[in-house]
């Protein structure tokens, strides 16, 4: 059992999905899905524990020895991402039933749970696989399920948002496929570790540049790195609340993880950053993201859309940490990956509670919600403080490492931009806080009461995780630092 840990992490949700489909009954299918997600979370915890104590795990699929067979391989960074995806996935499912009861027709709930598990399968698969083509297939499983999840949104605009997401997502995935093909053409292998070993001997050919360009562009589309984020605001705004939370916490983060893995684990900084001008390009994109997207977020009247633009900005921090190329910079990128996933997913869930009770995420509707739903609004507030980077939240830890890495690299402009972006975050978080706490509630909101317990528990699990990382984060920072050092050392 323990020997097959890595493959079970994928196979169990993959087999769980059609089972949930067969159950059909609304309540029974929910419990089946929750059980599967719970088992996935348990396996993920076991993987994290084993990787932390034993080091990198490897599994040869079907007994075919890598690099001939498909290898599943989880190192420290992979384990972090597996744990992240499984926990956000479980919290989302805990939250789901009451929330989607108002957003999706009851007879379609079992389909929702099936898709949710398929999306979870794909995302977990990306995090455990050590094979590029396998990664592409899992990416498409996660994406296809993701498009349909977005399309299940309550208004008809969800359909156009999902279609737009599908077109751009498929373009991104095909770009990735081209990149994988060209890499296969020059190295003759699809195994990531094997490719990393062979690439330095290939020589600096144009094929390699084109492969890296296509692969990065595709991943940037999937990770919504500014200016390739155009699908994201609509998709997150019109998707069901729980789907916005789930996708914001996992889908873009997994794409960023692949980007880290590709540039450091496979290409190595010498090829990816010094020979190809990827570093300059990405620094510009990341800097624009944290300033422009934060500024746009201030002007949104729909809070869900505000959070979506804020996500684009927060992805920019990961990109910046990644391009700084130092241990501190990468540590910041990895912590930001995790902390933003928990923070933003938690905030979307808190907003989902408000939408459930108030019927809309419009800023005007949130008047006085702080008095009607104190527990929910407090969760949103803590998340918002995390986005700003107030001490005692995980966001602060990120910014601390990011700024110190920027100072180390003498990148003063970045320090100024990071502080400017934090101030912009204060502005958009304050707009909601002011309306929620300092305006008198509408008469129409008289009967509004606190959200159901399961939804609050799910929300606070995620928000609590960011507080935990912010206050007792030294162990987590240690893990991130070890993962960062490992990434830099793997590079030749």
């Amino acid at each position: 059992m323990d020997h097959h840990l890595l493959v079970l992490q994928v196979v169990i949700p993959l087999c769980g999905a059609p089972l949930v489909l067969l159950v059909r009954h609304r309540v029974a299918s929910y419990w089946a899905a929750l059980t599967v997600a719970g088992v996935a979370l348990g396996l993920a915890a076991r993987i994290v524990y084993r990787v932390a104590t034993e080091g990198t795990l490897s599994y040869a699929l079907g007994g075919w020895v890598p690099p001939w067979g498909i290898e599943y391989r989880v190192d420290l960074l992979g384990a972090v991402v597996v744990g992240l995806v499984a926990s956000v996935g479980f919290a989302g499912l805990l939250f789901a039933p009451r929330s989607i009861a108002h957003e999706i027709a009851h007879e379609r709930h079992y389909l929702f749970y099936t898709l949710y598990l398929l999306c979870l399968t794909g995302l977990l698969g990306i995090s455990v696989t050590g094979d590029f083509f396998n990664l592409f297939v899992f990416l498409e499983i996660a994406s296809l399920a993701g498009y349909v999840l977005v399309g299940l949104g309550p208004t008809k605009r969800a359909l156009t948002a999902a279609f737009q997401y599908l077109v751009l997502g498929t373009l991104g995935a095909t770009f990735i496929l081209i990149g994988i093909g060209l890499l296969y053409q020059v190295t003759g292998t699809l195994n990531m570790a094997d490719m990393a070993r062979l690439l330095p001997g290939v020589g600096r050919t144009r094929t390699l540049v084109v492969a890296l360009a296509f692969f990065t562009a595709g991943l940037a589309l999937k990770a919504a790195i500014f200016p390739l984020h155009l699908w994201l605001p609509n998709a997150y705004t019109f998707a069901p609340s729980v789907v916005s939370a789930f996708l914001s916490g996992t889908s873009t983060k997994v794409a960023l993880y692949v980007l880290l893995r590709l540039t450091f684990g496979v290409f190595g900084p010498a090829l990816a950053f010094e020979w190809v001008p990827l570093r300059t390009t990405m620094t510009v994109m990341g800097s624009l993201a944290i300033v422009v997207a934060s500024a746009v977020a201030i002007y949104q009247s729909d809070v869900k859309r505000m959070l979506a633009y804020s996500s684009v900005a927060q992805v920019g921090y990961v990109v910046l940490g990644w391009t700084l190329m130092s241990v501190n910079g990468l540590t910041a990128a990895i912590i930001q990956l995790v902390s933003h996933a928990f923070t933003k997913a938690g905030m979307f869930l808190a907003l989902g509670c408000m939408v459930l009770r108030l019927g809309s995420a419009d800023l005007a509707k949130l008047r006085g919600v702080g008095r009607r739903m104190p527990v929910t609004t407090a969760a949103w507030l803590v998340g918002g403080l995390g986005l700003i980077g107030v001490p005692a939240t995980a966001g602060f830890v990120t910014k601390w490492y990011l700024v110190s890495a920027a100072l180390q690299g003498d990148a003063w402009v970045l320090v100024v931009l990071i502080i400017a972006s934090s101030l912009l975050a204060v502005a958009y978080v304050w707009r909601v806080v002011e309306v929620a706490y300092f305006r008198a509630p509408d008469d129409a909101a008289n009967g509004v009461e606190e959200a159901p317990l399961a939804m609050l528990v799910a929300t606070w699990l995620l928000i609590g995780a960011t507080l935990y990382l912010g206050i007792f984060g030294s162990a987590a920072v240690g893990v991130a630092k070890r993962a960062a050092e490992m990434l830099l050392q793997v590079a030749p």
Partner: protein
Amino acid sequence: MTLVLGLFNYWVAIFLMMVGFFTVIWRSNFVKKVIGLNIFQASVFLLYLTMGKVHGGTAPILNGSGVYTHPLPSVLILTAIVVGISTTAVALAFIVRIREAYGTIDEDELQQLDDAS
């Protein structure tokens, strides 16, 4: 000459790639966008198959001596074709639903309808 004829398949792949990409971006009709996506994906299939092809190679079935075409790219593309079909199916399903909800599948008209509401 070898640049044109020797790399003929690659030129075709690049041409199809451009045609598909252009169609996805330029056309406002959603069905045409999906067709563009399909052409774009097909160009990548061609790229993979070309790199596996060995001149004069046959199907890789072991029956004595001979030159074989590399089977792995073909197998990969088999998977990619399935992915492509699934994507097309989902996209067309969305188009049907959009048509039911809005009465049009033209991007510009949909934009106007969304702005008006």
